[in-house]
C-alpha cells in the first residue's frame, strides 16, 4: 500500500546554535537493509534519536508506513513499530539474558496480562509467563544465546551483549529495526556471522533494517542502499556501490 516504510521530510534538529542535523530526507523501502554512514560527529546517532523520539526535531517530520509518528514519546514510537539498539550498549544488567528479552515482549498482545491479574496470580499470569519464556528462548536461539539465558546480562562478553540487544529489540516486534554500530568491537568472523543473522532476521521477521556502521566492508556487503551524512546534512544517497564511490563521500572520509 505504501512504497516506503520510513520516510523523513526535512528532518532537522539544532542544539543551541549547533545544527546537528538538517534537511535530512531518507526514504527506505520495505524489507530493505539500509545504511546510514558518515564520519564521526556527522549526526548519525542524532537521526536515530530523532526517529525513536529521544529528541524532538526542530524542523521536519517523518512517517512510518505512511503514518506520521513524529512527536510521539519513545514508548509510543516503539509501539508503532520502531525498535533500536544503542551505540553504547544499554542492557538491563541486573537481569538474566532471558529476562532482558522478556522485557522486550512486554507489550506483545499475545502475552497480555493486566496488573490486577498479576496481583492475584490468575491463570493468565502463568500462561503468559510461560509463553513469554518460550518465545524469548526462540529468539535467543537465533543469536546463539540460548545457552547463556540464565546468566546475568552484564557478565556476557561484548559481542554477545550486542547480539542480546538486537534480540531484545526484535522481541518488540518492530517493522523497522535501527541498529547503531552493530559490528563495533567484533572480530571479522563475528562480523560475518552478524551479516548472515541480519539478513536472516530481515527475511524471517519481514522487517526493514536501518543501520549505522563504520565497517565499510560490512556495509558494502549488507546494505542495499545508503545515505551518507556529513556535518548533519546528506552528502550522498542511493545505491550502495554508487554512493560509496562518490568523490564527495571519499573526500569526507579521507579529509581534504
Amino acid at each position: 500500500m505504501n512504497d516506503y516504510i520510513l520516510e523523513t521530510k526535512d528532518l532537522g534538529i539544532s542544539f543551541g546554535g549547533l545544527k546537528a542535523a538538517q534537511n535530512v530526507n531518507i526514504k527506505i523501502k520495505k524489507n530493505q537493509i539500509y545504511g546510514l554512514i558518515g564520519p564521526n560527529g556527522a549526526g548519525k546517532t542524532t537521526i536515530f534519536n530523532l526517529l525513536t523520539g529521544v529528541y524532538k526535531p526542530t524542523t521536519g517530520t517523518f512517517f512510518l508506513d505512511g503514518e506520521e509518528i513524529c512527536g510521539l514519546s519513545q514508548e509510543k514510537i516503539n509501539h508503532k513499530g520502531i525498535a533500536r539498539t544503542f551505540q553504547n550498549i544499554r542492557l538491563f544488567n541486573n537481569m538474566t539474558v532471558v529476562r532482558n528479552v522478556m522485557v522486550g515482549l512486554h507489550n506483545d498482545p499475545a502475552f497480555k496480562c493486566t496488573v490486577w491479574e498479576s496481583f492475584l496470580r490468575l491463570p493468565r499470569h502463568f500462561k503468559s509467563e510461560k509463553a513469554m519464556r518460550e518465545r524469548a528462548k526462540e529468539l535467543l536461539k537465533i543469536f546463539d544465546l540460548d545457552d547463556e539465558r540464565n546468566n546475568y546480562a552484564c557478565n556476557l562478553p561484548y559481542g554477545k551483549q550486542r547480539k542480546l540487544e538486537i534480540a531484545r529489540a526484535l522481541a518488540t516486534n518492530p517493522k523497522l529495526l535501527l541498529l547503531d554500530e552493530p559490528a563495533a568491537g567484533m572480530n571479522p568472523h563475528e562480523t560475518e556471522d552478524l551479516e548472515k543473522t541480519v539478513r536472516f532476521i530481515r527475511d524471517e521477521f519481514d522487517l526493514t533494517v536501518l543501520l549505522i556502521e563504520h565497517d565499510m566492508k560490512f556495509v558494502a556487503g549488507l546494505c542495499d542502499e545508503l545515505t551518507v551524512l556529513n556535518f548533519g546534512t546528506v552528502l550522498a544517497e542511493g545505491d550502495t556501490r554508487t554512493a560509496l564511490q562518490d568523490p564527495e563521500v571519499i573526500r569526507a572520509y579521507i579529509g581534504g
Partner: protein
Amino acid sequence: MNISNLLDCSVMSGGGASFGDKLADIGRELITIIINGLSVGGIYAMIALGYTMVYGIAKMLNFAHGDIIMVGAYAIYVVMLISNPIVAILCSIVVCILMGVLIEKVAYKPLRGASPLAVLITAIGVSYLLQSLAQIIFGSDPKFVVVYDFGAINILGVRIQVFTLVTLAVTVVVMVALTLFVKMTRIGRAMIAVSEDKGAAQLMGINVNNIITVTFAIGSSLAAVAGLFYLLKAPTVSNTLGAMPGIKAFTAAVIGGIGSIPGAMLGGLLLGFVECIAAKITVIAPYTDAIEFSILIIILLVRPTGFLGKKRREKV
C-alpha cells in the same frame, strides 16, 4: 522550628489611631519583615552556599552538611567555657573543617564511582551518626551559650538587632569572596574543571581527590559560620540544631539552581522572606514549613534546575 520565631525584632508601637499613624505602622512592619527576611535569608544562604559548593563539585548531596552546623555550634559552646568569642569562632571553623574532611575521607571517598543512591544513603547515615554522637556527648537538653551581644539600634522607629545586619554583611562578603575565589584562583578553576568532568580534569593533571577535599573544607567552614549566626540569633545548642535548617537550605540551593553561587544567595533570601512573611500572617503561620516545602516541590516540578541552574542531558 523556624528561625523567624526566635527573632526579637519588634515594632515600636505607634500608639495613635489616626490614618497617618496607621500608615507609619504598616511602614515599620514592612521594614521589620524586610530586615528579618534578609537576616534569616542570609543564614539560609550561608548554608546553601556550602551545599551548592559540594554538590556542584563532588556531585553529591551532602546530607550531613546541616549537622556540621551543629558541630560548629557545639565547638563554640565548648571553647566559650574556657576562652573568648574570637578564639571560639576560630576553633569552631577549624573543628568543622576537620570534621568535613574526615567525613569525606572516611564515608564518601570509598564510594567515589559507586552509584549516587549509595552515596546519598551513606550521607544520610553520617547525618544520623553526627546527631546521635552529639547527643551521647552533650546530652539531650539544649545548652545555653551567648557568644556576643551586639545590642540593637533604631532605624526609622524600628528596633533592629545589630546581628541581623552583621549576618547579612558577612553573607554578602562570603558570597563575593567565593565567586572571586572560584573565578580567579588556580584551585577555583580546577574546581570548575572537576565539576564539568572528573575524568578529563584528572587527565589535565588536576588531583581530583584534593580538589574535592578542599571543597568539603570550604563548605564546612561556611557551615561553621552559619552555626555562629545561629547562636547569635538563638543562644541554645541542641543535637538537632542543624537538621531542619539544613534541609531548608538545600531547598534554597535547589530553588536558586544547584551549583550556582549567586543562586544559593537568591534562593536563601527568597526562602527567608517567605518564612518571615508567612510567620506574620496568623492563619498560615503554623504551616510555614509546609509552605516552604510546597514551594520546593512546585519549583522542582516547574523548573527542576532552579532559577540560575544549568540544564544537562543524558547522552544516548
